[in-house]
């Protein structure tokens, strides 16, 4: 059973990846790409005289959120098994998790006070 489930999963992966790959091949149905400077240039409102490109360092400012995300998504990961088994864990479990959540909320408040959630 275990091996057949693996095989089944493999077949799923084959199809789920295969079909999009196949769709990719349709590019050969179209005309052969021709090249010109203007066509190959990245689009920037029709201006050809560009200053810098998209590979330069880009200010992250409010993308700081990504870091806060890691913190809170880990929290969710911890909470998932807890939530599923809550009935068995009972009151003790809930008090434990509330302490955990309380700590994280305190963290959020700290971040909030520090201004990391201000983006303008």
């Amino acid at each position, binding site marked *: 059973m275990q091996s057949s489930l693996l*095989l089944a999963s493999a077949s799923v*992966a084959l199809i789920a990846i295969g079909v999009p790959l196949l769709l990719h091949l349709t590019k050969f149905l179209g005309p052969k790409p021709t090249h010109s400077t203007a066509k190959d240039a*990245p689009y920037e409102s029709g201006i050809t005289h560009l200053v810098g490109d998209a590979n330069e360092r880009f200010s992250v400012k409010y993308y700081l959120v990504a870091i806060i995300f890691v913190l809170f998504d880990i929290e969710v990961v911890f909470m998932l098994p807890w939530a599923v088994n809550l009935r068995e864990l009972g009151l003790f479990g809930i008090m434990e998790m509330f302490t955990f959540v309380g700590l994280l909320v305190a963290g959020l408040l700290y971040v909030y006070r520090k201004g990391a959630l201000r983006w303008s």
Partner: protein
Amino acid sequence: MDAIIIETLIKIVVVVLIFSALGGFGTYFERKILAFLQRRWGPNIVGPFGLLQIIADGIKLFTKEDIIPINAERGIFIFSTLIIAVAAFTAFVAIPIYPQFTVFGYTVRPIVIDVNVGLLFVMGVMAVGMYSPLLAGMSSGNKWSLLGAARAVVALLSFEVITGLSILAPLMLVGSLSLIDINAYQMGGIDNWMVWQQPIAFVLFLIAGFAETNRKPFDLSEQDAEIIGGYHTEYSGMKYGLMMIGEYANMFVVAFLVSIIFLGGYGEAGSIVNGEAVGAWGGIWLILKVAFFFILFVWVRAAWPHIRPDQLMWLAWKVLMPLAVVNIVITGIVMMA
């Protein structure tokens, strides 16, 4: 070869075909519904009721010249279009899209692979799809795409947290991550739907669903009036098409999830065998529920402007997230009481 492999293969082919096609039909219905709301005709030239528009669009996408800008990272540029479609297709594997039914004496379970942590699997795979806009935007070598990627990531990341937190409260009630168990929990009619027990979680999850599928009012990563298509500015032909298929498939994933978790899924089935719903009625109900959410997606698109990145952040972190935490605490207290 094992029967299960043949069954799985058939199912996955059906699922992938159905949802690729749904991507096409989705665009058609979206355009028709939008047109109705906007007092115009929508597609009505190609074929009866413009139905062949889907085929015309397909031919157009298939035969477009394949342009990759010169300073794009070719490999990642192409690879990123795969991620979103593959992720969306894979997510369907763990979603029960129909009640159990019997054909030629063979009982077909309506799920490609019954993972006992189905919900976790679906959410995890959907989160992988997030790499698509990020990589697409960063590999295009285009400043608009870069802005789009940054916007996409910040929106998806924020709402990933909301999705996770909002789903916790229903899970506490059900005590299982299997979508079939969640569906079984709500069986027996409209009174048992999760939405009555968890209205806040329902609203939060739905809002997060709009954000995760890049739909208005959270469609800021591809707003063409602002950042010219955002991360898919440089994409053309089927590469663009795959991103669209992925987005529409994602939309259906969210519609299925909301229907199954909060609106009773196919719980209105004709009969219940071994604690599982069986029969065609439940399937039709589920399809209607999914259709309702699809129309809701389109309706919201027609009705509202879209918001600014900083407003989206504000909404996610300062309004929805505290609400989700409070909801969990309340649910916990009520359960213990």
